[in-house]
């Protein structure tokens, strides 16, 4: 299992997430694309953290980054979905190209 293979999978995941973010109109789907991109970044962090092992003992920094990224992604998802719910109550839509005004 080479680092290139792992990073390739992460790159494909990132591109799929980017495509999802660009083309979707539903805000929840856009959030799913963001989650895909975050997961790709997490795979990259772990892979590069393991790459830097050469002879100087285990490096824990990349793993720590992933811990905090997962934690902040959970907080971000909670706040974003709350905002989407609130927008849906006020405007009756969750499609990003119809949210054109900041107030009712």
């Amino acid at each position, binding site marked *: 299992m080479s680092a290139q293979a792992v990073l*390739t999978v992460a790159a494909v995941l990132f591109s799929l997430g980017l495509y999802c973010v660009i083309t979707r109109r539903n805000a929840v789907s856009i959030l799913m694309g963001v989650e895909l991109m975050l997961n790709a970044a997490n795979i990259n962090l772990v892979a590069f953290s393991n790459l830097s092992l050469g002879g100087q003992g285990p490096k824990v920094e990349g793993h720590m980054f992933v811990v905090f990224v*997962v934690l902040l992604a959970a907080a971000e*998802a909670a706040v974003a979905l709350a905002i989407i719910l609130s927008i849906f109550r006020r405007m009756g839509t969750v499609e990003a190209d119809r949210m054109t005004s900041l107030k009712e």
Partner: protein
Amino acid sequence: MAEAVVFYIIAAFTIGTACVTAFSGNIIRSAFSLLGTLVGVAAMFGMMGADFLAVIQVMIYVGGVMVLILFAVMLTHRIKDVNVSNRSLPAFPGAAVAVLVLGVLLYGIWYGLPGDTARVEAKMTPLIGKALVGSHVLPFLASGLVLLIALIGSVVIARREETFVCGPGEAKR
């Protein structure tokens, strides 16, 4: 050899479910295939020797974020129109951007890196535990604060606006 076979199975599963997430026209199907992607990423963490990350991936993403997303999907759609509610823009510009980014990333990965293994043999979980209360204790505590603020903030934002009558002598809102 067996490790490589398992890795390619996991990679194919992860990318396949991510494709369904990105291309499916049904948002419920997108959400449930995102579940598969998250489980696949957790399995990849496990294969890379990051056991603790695999566990928190399953606990937080699969157990928490996916439930949140499914709740949001169900709350923002009427059941009858769930099939048509995942409209997309025309595919070409987004596909062009995504393919360009993928090309740049793959070029950098295949021509800019030494061929090294991505698997760590050391036990990372004790190291993560020591770092969380040692060198990284400040971000650890700050993330607790962030979680508290996010929790309260999301409750306040998602709260239903109700017009309620105050006690006697006070103004009606």
